[in-house]
C-alpha cells in the first residue's frame, strides 16, 4: 500500500499530540520536524518539503493552533489541507474529444517507467468505456519494444499499428492517425521511446511528433519510486514538450510515492491514473484529496465504494438490498456476495482502503483473514441443494451430515456456518430498517454481519 509508512509515521506523531491535549509552540515545531523527515524519506522533493513546512508552520504556529479547542485535530487539518492543495484540489479526468473525432494521446517518459505496459492498460480502459483505441508503436530504438506492445495489445484485444524500425516515429504517428481514420478508431495512443529529459535529440523527436500530428493529450509516465529527480523530469518534459497529465506507475510496490507530491507541486499538472498492478483494471483513477487523507491515515472509503460500484451490477445490488430488508437472504446470495468481494480484489485489497487500517494493522489483519476459510465456506454452500440454499431453515441434522461429507469438512464447520448465517440474517433485518431512509443502498459487504469468515 502506497504511503503506508508515511501515514504510519504521521499517525504516530499525532497520537502523541492528542495525548497532550493542548499544543505548545515547541510541540508544533517538533512535530513538524517529524513531518519533514517523513516527507523526505518518502522522496518528496526537498524544495517541495521546504515550501510545505513553511506554509504549515505559518498556519500552525500562532492563533489557529494556540487558540484552538483541539490542537491536535487542528494540526491534522492544516497538514491535510496543505497536502491536498499540494496534490491538486480536485481529481482530474483524461480529456477526450467526443466520439466522432479522433483523440491522439502521446505517452512519454524515462526508460523503464512503464510506458508500453501503461499504453495497453489505458487502451483497455478506454475500450471498456466504449472507445475504439488503436496503439501505435513509435519506439523504434529499444530492442523488441514493438513486439512487447504487440503482445500487450493482443492480451487486451487492442490492435497495434507498427511500421517496423526503419521509419521515423513522427512518420509512424502520422500513418497511425490516417490508419485510425480509415478504420474507424477514435483514440490513437502513441507509445514513444523512453528518453532522458536531457537528451536534446530525443526530446526534439517528441516535438516533431507533436508538429506532425495533432496531439490532444501528452501524458508523462513516471515511476512512483522516483526520488529527488522527479522534479527535474517533470520540469523538463513540461518545458520542452508540455504535459497535460501524469500517470504514476508501480504504486503497488511499497514505495511511499513522494514523487506524486513533487510532480504536482512542480509542474502543476494533474495525476490522471496510478498503476496498482499488472492487470489492465489495475490502472486506477487518482484522487488527490483522498490520497492526502490516506497519507494522514484517514482511509480511503470513497475509493472502496467506487471500486465496488464499478464491479457490481447495479440491478443485482438493488435486488440484494431488498432481500436484506426482508431478510430473505439465502445461501445463494451469500455465495454471490462472496464472489463479488473476490472480484474487488479480495479482503486485503478492500481492507487497505478502510480508514484507520495502517500498515502494521493491515498485516495483522491479513494474517487473521483466512482466504482458505472462504474457500471452505464456498464448498459447504455448494454442497447444499438449491432448495436448502434458498431456505436455510430446512437444514436438519441429516442434511448437515450429508453437506459436511459433500464438502469434505467436519460437521462442526457446517454448524458454525449455519449459526453465523442466522446471526447475520438477524442483523440484516435490523439493518434493513435503517436502510429504508437512504436513497441508494448500493453494495453491502457480506462481513457486515460480523465474524462471518
Amino acid at each position, binding site marked *: 500500500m502506497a504511503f503506508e509508512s508515511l501515514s504510519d509515521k504521521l499517525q504516530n506523531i499525532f497520537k502523541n499530540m492528542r495525548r497532550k491535549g493542548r499544543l505548545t509552540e515547541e510541540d508544533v515545531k517538533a512535530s513538524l520536524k517529524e513531518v519533514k*523527515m517523513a516527507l*523526505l*524519506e*518518502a*522522496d518528496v*522533493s*526537498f*524544495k517541495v518539503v521546504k515550501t510545505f513546512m513553511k506554509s504549515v508552520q505559518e498556519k500552525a504556529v500562532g492563533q489557529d493552533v494556540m487558540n484552538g479547542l483541539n490542537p491536535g485535530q487542528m494540526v491534522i487539518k492544516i497538514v491535510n489541507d496543505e497536502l491536498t492543495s499540494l496534490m491538486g484540489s480536485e481529481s482530474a479526468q483524461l480529456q477526450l474529444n467526443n466520439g466522432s473525432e479522433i483523440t491522439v494521446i502521446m505517452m512519454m517518459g*524515462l*526508460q*523503464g*517507467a*512503464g510506458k508500453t505496459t501503461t499504453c495497453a492498460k489505458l487502451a483497455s480502459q478506454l475500450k471498456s468505456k466504449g472507445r475504439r483505441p488503436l496503439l501505435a508503436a513509435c519506439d523504434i530504438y*529499444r*530492442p*523488441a*519494444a514493438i*513486439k*512487447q*506492445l*504487440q*503482445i*500487450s495489445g493482443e*492480451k487486451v484485444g487492442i490492435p497495434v499499428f507498427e511500421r517496423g524500425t526503419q521509419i521515423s516515429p513522427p512518420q509512424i504517428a502520422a500513418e497511425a492517425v490516417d490508419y485510425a481514420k480509415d478504420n474507424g478508431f477514435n483514440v490513437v495512443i502513441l507509445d514513444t521511446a523512453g528518453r*532522458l*529529459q*536531457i*537528451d536534446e535529440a530525443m526530446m526534439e523527436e517528441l516535438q516533431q511528433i507533436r508538429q506532425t500530428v495533432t496531439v490532444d493529450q501528452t501524458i508523462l509516465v513516471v*515511476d512512483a*519510486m*522516483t*526520488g*529527488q*529527480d*522527479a522534479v*527535474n*523530469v517533470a*520540469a*523538463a518534459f513540461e*518545458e520542452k514538450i508540455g504535459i497535460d497529465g501524469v500517470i504514476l*506507475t*508501480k504504486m*503497488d*510496490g*511499497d*514505495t*511511499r510515492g*513522494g*514523487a506524486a507530491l513533487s510532480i504536482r507541486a512542480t509542474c502543476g499538472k494533474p495525476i490522471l491514473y496510478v498503476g496498482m498492478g499488472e492487470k489492465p483494471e489495475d490502472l486506477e483513477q487518482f484522487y488527490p484529496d483522498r490520497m492526502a487523507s490516506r497519507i494522514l491515515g484517514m482511509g480511503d472509503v470513497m475509493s472502496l465504494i467506487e471500486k465496488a460500484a464499478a464491479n457490481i451490477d447495479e440491478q443485482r445490488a438493488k435486488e440484494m438490498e431488498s432481500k436484506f430488508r426482508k431478510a430473505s437472504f439465502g445461501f445463494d446470495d451469500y455465495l454471490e456476495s462472496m464472489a463479488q468481494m473476490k472480484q474487488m480484489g479480495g479482503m486485503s485489497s478492500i481492507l487497505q482502503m478502510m480508514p484507520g487500517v495502517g500498515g502494521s494493522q493491515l498485516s495483522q489483519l491479513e494474517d487473521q483473514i483466512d482466504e482458505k476459510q472462504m474457500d471452505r465456506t464456498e464448498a459447504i454452500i455448494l454442497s447444499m441443494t438449491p432448495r436448502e440454499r434458498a431456505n436455510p431453515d430446512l437444514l436438519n441434522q441429516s442434511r448437515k451430515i450429508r453437506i459436511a461429507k459433500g464438502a469434505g469438512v467436519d460437521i462442526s464447520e457446517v454448524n458454525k456456518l449455519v449459526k453465523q448465517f442466522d446471526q447475520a440474517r438477524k442483523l440484516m433485518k435490523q439493518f434493513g430498517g435503517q436502510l429504508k431512509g437512504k436513497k441508494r443502498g448500493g453494495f453491502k459487504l457480506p462481513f457486515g454481519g460480523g465474524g462471518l469468515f
Partner: protein
Amino acid sequence: MAEEKKGFFRRLVDGLSKTRSSIVSGFDNIFAGYSSIDDDFYDEIEEILVMGDIGIKATTNIIDELKEKVKEEHIRDPKECRQILMDSIKAQMNVEETDYAFENQKSVVLVVGVNGVGKTTSIGKLAGLLQAEGKKVIMAAADTFRAAAGEQLTEWAQRAGVAIVSGQEGSDPGSVVYDAIASAKAKDADILLVDTAGRLHNKKNLMNELGKINRIIDREYPEAYRETLVVLDGTTGQNALSQAREFQAVTPVSGIILTKLDGTAKGGIAVAIHAELGIPVKYIGVGENIDDLQKFDADAFVSALFDIAPAETAEGGLS
C-alpha cells in the same frame, strides 16, 4: 587501468555536462560562500545530500559525523569540510579488487531487480564488457514473463556476439536456467549471465520464484562461483533501500548495478545502501551504448554526486 579510469570519468562527466553547462562546481560555491561553520552551512549540506537521493537518515549520519570532526579537530574553515565529507563517503564506497573475482573463474551471475530498472539492457552490456575481456559468455533469458523480454535479450546477445538460451513466453524460468547451465557446461563457458523477470520486491510469490532459481543453480552447478547483482535505477529514491533489502532476503546479493546515471539523477541512494546494507556498487550504466556499462569508480562517483548546483542555480538552469 589508467585509460579505463579516464574513460569512466569522461563518460560520467559527459553525462553530467549534458545536464546543464552552467553547473561547474556548485558545491564549491557553497563552501566558498560561507565564512564560518554555522547551522545554515550544515542546512545547505543537508540539502545537497538529500537532493542527491542519499536519504535523510544517511544524510543525518554523515552530517553528525562531520560535526563531530569539526569539533574534535577545531576546524574553522568551511572549505576544509568539503574534503572531509568527500573522503568519508569515498572511504565507504570503495570497491575491493576481490569484488570482481567472478570474472576470473567459472561463474554464474544472477541479475535481479524490480520492473523497468534496466536489467536486460545491463546484461547485454555486461556481456559485451566480459566478451571484450576475452571471456566466453552465455546468457539465459529467464524473464519469461514480460512480453518480448526474450526477444530484447536475444537482440543484445547478437550485438555482444554471445550465445543465448531462452524459453517460451510464460514457460518456467527454472527450466530455462536448467537448460542454460547444461549449455554452459557443454560449451565450457566462463560466465553464465542469468536475466530474470522484473518483480516488485513486495510480491511474495515472485520473490519465492527467485529462491527457486537460486536453488536450481546451486544444485546443478555447485562448482560455479556465484555472483548476484541487483540492478537499481539511479533515479529511484529511498525505495531502492527496501528493494535491496528484500532481494537480499531471498538470494545472497553480492553487488549492485546502478543504471541510468547519464540523466540528471545522482544515484545517491547507493551511498545509503552501502552504508546500511554493506552491498557495494560494482557497475554503473551511463548511457545507451553497449560499452556504456562501467566498473564503479568511487572517486568519480562522489565527485559527480557533489557536483550539484545550489537549488536556485539548478532552477535557473532548467529554464
